[in-house]
């Protein structure tokens, strides 16, 4: 066996990356994202990288990004889910019908604080049930996921249609709408508090991982490397919060708010939006899914099954039940995505989530999830969703014709996978 150290000394830059243990493919994706942003910023004379546009980009990404985290699990276990857009529509329709006709019929009037939580619960439960059912068809009846969810693509889209008679259902409950994006934000102070908590959590996570390794006497990174990691994550988190805080609520909106409260707006008063609740929801989903992937048996089994289904089964893992769980998780996330999407529009429409399955799969694949299974990250999928959304809205801002927009997005997907294949060949990485 040859030792790594006996080979020719690698370049200094690579050394630093190695010490920091940063994934080079993550860096590549971040690089691609930065290039996309800069190019559009130049082409739009600086309109792309304004707090306003970044805020909009963020809230437009949330729905697809939430589903993309679940798609990572589905693809890692060597399945696919083509029904997510339709499932989102069914969940959204269930939530809309619950709050506009079901609950009012039961005596809960509009504006009742119970309406939003009950509706959300119904939506999420719908997603879990349908997802679990599709997972059962795949896992226990051994119908290929491609077929089950291709059928689901048609079925659930039209179940949503049937539930609402094809009508647009709205306006939705006001509390419910808070999760749509611009309609519900934390405000500047709240955002800073959340940002600070995030920084603390990141630092604690880095430090406790180090402590665990020291306790077992494993080699650890130098302290400066850990410090750099902490500083970088702090800068990213607080920078993001600062950007969202910098997007100010238009003066006339504020004036209207003061009028409604029966007061006059003080001279020179201004207020930033801060972090939207929907983004907070995405962060929550991302953290939970990452913890599930890395720190729970469920996650371990998902990745083991993707790497070698036979081995997983021989190790006593119930791979059939696992399939049900993975699709149920996907369903729950479709429910949450439906919540964000319909709340953002402030109504449920018949075509909500159309073609989202393609965006979600593309986000996961661009984010480094291998269709062969066993490999994928949650943060990659979210970054993938962000890249897709940036391309789309960037092109819209530049004034690219609609057909060309889709042509570019499609080509980028194929190109991203090609680059990924070349990267894996070169590094021999999994």
């Amino acid at each position, binding site marked *: 066996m040859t030792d790594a150290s006996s080979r020719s000394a690698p370049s200094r830059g690579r050394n630093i990356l190695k010490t920091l243990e940063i994934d080079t493919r993550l860096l590549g994706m971040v690089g691609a994202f930065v290039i996309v942003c800069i190019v559009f910023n130049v082409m739009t004379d600086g309109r792309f990288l304004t707090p306003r546009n970044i805020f909009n980009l963020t809230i437009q990404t949330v729905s697809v990004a939430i589903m993309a985290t679940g798609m990572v699990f589905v693809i890692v276990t060597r399945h696919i889910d083509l029904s997510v857009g339709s499932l989102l529509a069914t969940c959204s329709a269930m939530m809309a019908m619950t709050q506009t006709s079901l609950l009012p019929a039961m005596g809960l009037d509009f504006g009742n604080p119970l309406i939003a939580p009950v509706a959300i619960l119904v939506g999420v439960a719908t997603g879990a049930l349908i997802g679990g059912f599709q997972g059962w068809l795949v896992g226990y009846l051994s119908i290929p996921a491609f077929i089950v969810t291709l059928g689901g693509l048609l079925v659930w889209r039209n179940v949503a249609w049937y539930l609402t008679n094809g009508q647009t259902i709205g306006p939705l409950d006001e509390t419910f709408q808070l999760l749509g994006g611009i309609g519900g934000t934390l405000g500047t102070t709240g955002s800073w508090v959340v940002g600070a908590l995030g920084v603390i959590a990141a630092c604690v996570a880095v430090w406790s991982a180090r402590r*665990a*390794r020291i306790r077992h006497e494993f080699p650890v990174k130098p302290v400066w490397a850990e410090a750099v990691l902490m500083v970088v994550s702090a800068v990213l988190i607080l920078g993001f919060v600062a950007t969202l805080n910098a997007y100010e609520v238009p003066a006339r909106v504020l004036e209207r708010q003061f009028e409604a409260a029966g007061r006059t707006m003080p001279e020179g008063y201004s207020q930033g939006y801060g972090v939207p609740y929907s983004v907070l929801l995405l962060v929550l989903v991302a953290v939970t899914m990452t*913890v599930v992937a890395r*720190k729970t*048996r469920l996650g371990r089994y998902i990745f083991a099954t993707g790497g*070698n289904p036979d081995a997983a089964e021989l*190790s006593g893992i119930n791979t059939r039940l696992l399939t049900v769980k993975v699709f149920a998780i996907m369903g729950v996330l479709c429910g949450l995505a439906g919540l964000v999407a319909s709340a953002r529009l402030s109504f449920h429409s018949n075509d909500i989530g159309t073609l989202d399955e393609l965006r979600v799969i593309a986000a996961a694949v661009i984010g480094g999830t291998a269709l062969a299974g*066993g*490999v994928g990250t949650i943060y990659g999928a979210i970054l993938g969703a962000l890249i897709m959304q940036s391309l789309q809205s960037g092109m819209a801002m530049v004034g690219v014709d609609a057909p060309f927009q889709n042509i570019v997005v499609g080509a980028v997907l194929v190109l991203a996978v090609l680059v990924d294949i070349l990267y894996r060949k070169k590094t021999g990485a*999994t």
Partner: protein
Amino acid sequence: MADRSGPPLVEMRDISISFGGIRAVDHVSVDLYPGEVVGLLGHNGAGKSTLIKCLSGAYRQDSGDILVNGEKVEIANPRDARDHNIETIYQTLALADNLDAASNLFLGRELTTTLGFVDDAAMEAETRRIMGRLNPNFRKFSAPVKALSGGQRQSVAIARAVYFQAKILIMDEPTAALGPQETQMVAELIQELKKDGLGIFLIDHDVHQVKSLCDRAAVMKNGELVGIVDVDDVSTDDLLAMIIAGKKPEHPAA
């Protein structure tokens, strides 16, 4: 020599299993005592692996009983087998290539923290400990097992069986993909495990290896048991005759 005074560690009695009308295993009985290595010999398709998969829980026999320590047990899946301290090292090794050594070693039996999360640091520590015993040259603890050599992968698979205190170990051609040095390592390990009182079923093609490693050899042909012999009583030619012609030696060689 194995102690055969008590009940056998495991006894497979009159096992039969068919696949689509083909009798893969036809009324076969074998047993295994503590501290004993029983070799299973036969051509490809003779039914050795199928027989043993009934014991490891991968298949379910159509008829026949499995007894562990003299008591009848039901083995419906790999988890049941593990519960009876039956561990299997498959020919394919059954490793998840995308995970590291520790994750594979503990797959299905992860160590968890008090909060129920998998405890990677503790598992890596245990892996380092057992690898220090089995294969002291093993260093790649954080690499996915895909990046390991054949011998290193084999040692991960063996470590998995040994770590969980197997009483009955099934090895399906453990040295098929290994070089001479690594084969020697496996041979030494088998001797060591024997001393600890484990019973080992060794499926192998190599008659010489069976002669040197095993106490007894069970030979199968076309799903049927040709016979079980003490390896010291027969020559390699006798064993070959059993495998090829299905002929049991009438007068055991002196």
